């Protein structure tokens, strides 16, 4: 899974061959044949990077995301470059769970092409599938807008973080939070408590800074503690095979996962729904 590429006669001091794929060798690297591009080695879209490049990417993407929160690709890169330890922990949690290990084996993807929206529309109200569809319609989002993974140097961990991104919308449904700023921050708090991903923690800390004082109040008094509590207690949300549970009732699913129902109803008004579709904070 890991490769060490040969450095030339005069090794570049900054090339660290410690078992990670070195993508940025000095100019003495040999030409590769077209079949063996340096990209897409572990999975499609993979770009190998050394630790220095990862550090620079983390800092750069963090600054870019802070400066322009609409740059979802930068939030994604930040998550990938800083999340190694948390991803290992998540992957181990999934392995220890029977449903989670099934997911790791079968690798399901949540995309419009794999979802049967027509069938989900026929499900009764209150069922997980129907509520998820309602969430997609009300907030005008699509499951296909997630960035691809690029900088994770382990194929399994790359899937884990991809699953995390795709489960984010489902989490909104489970928690009953819309995609406006307040809803996003609440979900981020839940995710930070559950996954420990540095990008979630960062989002959870900096997100509230952009909230109005009344919303901040709501967050501090009811939504925030609820999200943290549920996050810490709940079963690992990545280990649930959502694709096989569309018919299940939402309440039942919440109980099974040990997630408290939301303390208040947060709604996004119709005019805001369009604007909110763009403020989706996903890694």
């Amino acid at each position: 899974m890991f490769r060490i590429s040969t450095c030339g006669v005069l090794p570049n001091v900054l090339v660290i061959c410690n078992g990670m794929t070195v993508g940025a060798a000095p100019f003495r690297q040999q030409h590769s044949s077209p079949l063996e591009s340096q990209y897409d080695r572990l999975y499609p879209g993979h770009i190998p990077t050394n630790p220095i490049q990862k550090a620079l990417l983390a800092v750069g993407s963090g600054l870019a995301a802070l400066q322009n929160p609409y740059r979802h690709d930068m939030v994604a890169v930040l998550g990938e470059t800083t999340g190694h330890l948390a991803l290992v922990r998540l992957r181990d949690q999934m392995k220890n769970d029977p449903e989670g290990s099934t997911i790791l084996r079968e690798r399901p993807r949540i995309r419009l092409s794999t979802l049967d929206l027509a069938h989900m529309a026929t499900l009764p109200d209150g069922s997980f599938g129907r509520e998820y569809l309602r969430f997609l319609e009300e907030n005008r989002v699509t499951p296909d807008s997630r960035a691809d993974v690029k900088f994770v140097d382990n194929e399994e961990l790359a899937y884990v973080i991809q699953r995390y991104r795709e489960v984010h919308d489902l989490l909104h449904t489970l928690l009953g939070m819309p995609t406006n700023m307040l809803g996003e921050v609440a979900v981020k708090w839940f995710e930070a408590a559950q996954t420990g991903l540095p990008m979630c923690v960062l989002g959870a800390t900096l997100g509230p800074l952009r909230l109005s004082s009344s919303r901040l109040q709501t967050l501090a008094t009811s939504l925030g503690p609820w999200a943290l509590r549920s996050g810490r207690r709940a079963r690992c949300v990545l280990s649930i095979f959502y694709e096989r549970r569309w018919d299940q009732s939402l309440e039942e699913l919440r109980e099974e996962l040990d997630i408290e129902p939301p303390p208040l109803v947060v709604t996004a008004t119709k005019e805001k729904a369009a604007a909110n579709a763009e403020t989706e904070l996903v890694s």
Partner: protein
Amino acid sequence: MGKMAAPVRCVARRILRDCTRKVNVLSTNQATKSIYPANIIVCRFHSNDSEGKSTHFGYETVPEGEKAERVYKVFESVAQKYDVMNDAMSLGIHRIWKDTLLHIMNPLPGTRLLDTAGGTGDISKRFLDYTRSQHERQQRRGVRSQQTLSWQEISNDYSHNDEQGPVESTAVVCDINKEMLKVGKDKAENTGYSSGLSWVVGDAEELPFADDHFDVYTIAFGIRNVTHIEQALEEALRVLKPGGRFMCLEFSKVSNPLLSRLYDAYSFQMIPVMGEVIAGDWKSYQYLVESIRNFPDQETFKGMIEDAGFFRVQYFNLTGGVVAIHSGFKL
């Protein structure tokens, strides 16, 4: 023997030229490159049989026919953020390099410039600024003896005569990539450069211009992306007037070993990261730094320019050799 127009003319030129000069011939069929003595004039013909040959695309090896398309895609995706990235990657120094190119060129008003691979038009705009300020300087000098009126008033009289005349300098920006030209054109219109500039889509290996047309030919940071550099040099020779000047601004080899290590580290660690963070495109900027390493060094490139038929070829190193300006004349 399909496309014969350019090579026939080049053969005729070779016959007229000094025959004791060694002729370096490149034939693009399956035969290997060889050097013939000057008394055998061999015609270079361009065959479409390039599947057998491969070239480099960064550190990848690709079939020749594919390189142009891949380069096109790279520049199509970077076009919008091209100027921002240039400033970030070179820390603004690329402006100094381009200004130096203009200073060495020192064009007089009325010069006709071909800015090949001109993309966003940086060189052409500097050229127009330079010639216009030179024009003003000339007028000022011309009326300095007549001190009664201010030079501005007198020059206004003169300017009515010759502004529309042949004294106007023109620049043609030629690029193979429509996206880059579009960005350049919009930028020029927003900053008020409309007269004296034209924007043409064209391939540096087969320029859509007549022979002996331009006074100066420049190619700034473009020639390393061309699949057949020798062909681009031949075309440059063709479209230049006798007495015309060829100028090339390009990344080159750094000779100082310490600077070279720093430069490599910066190129490979920082530049793709900047590409990802600023432009959202890692791969294009990885290609950029690799293509710089694949380009021949100063002396080799000077030899290639001489072989194409230019005289008085010289180069100037800038920033320790990170960038070099090569210059040659058509006589």
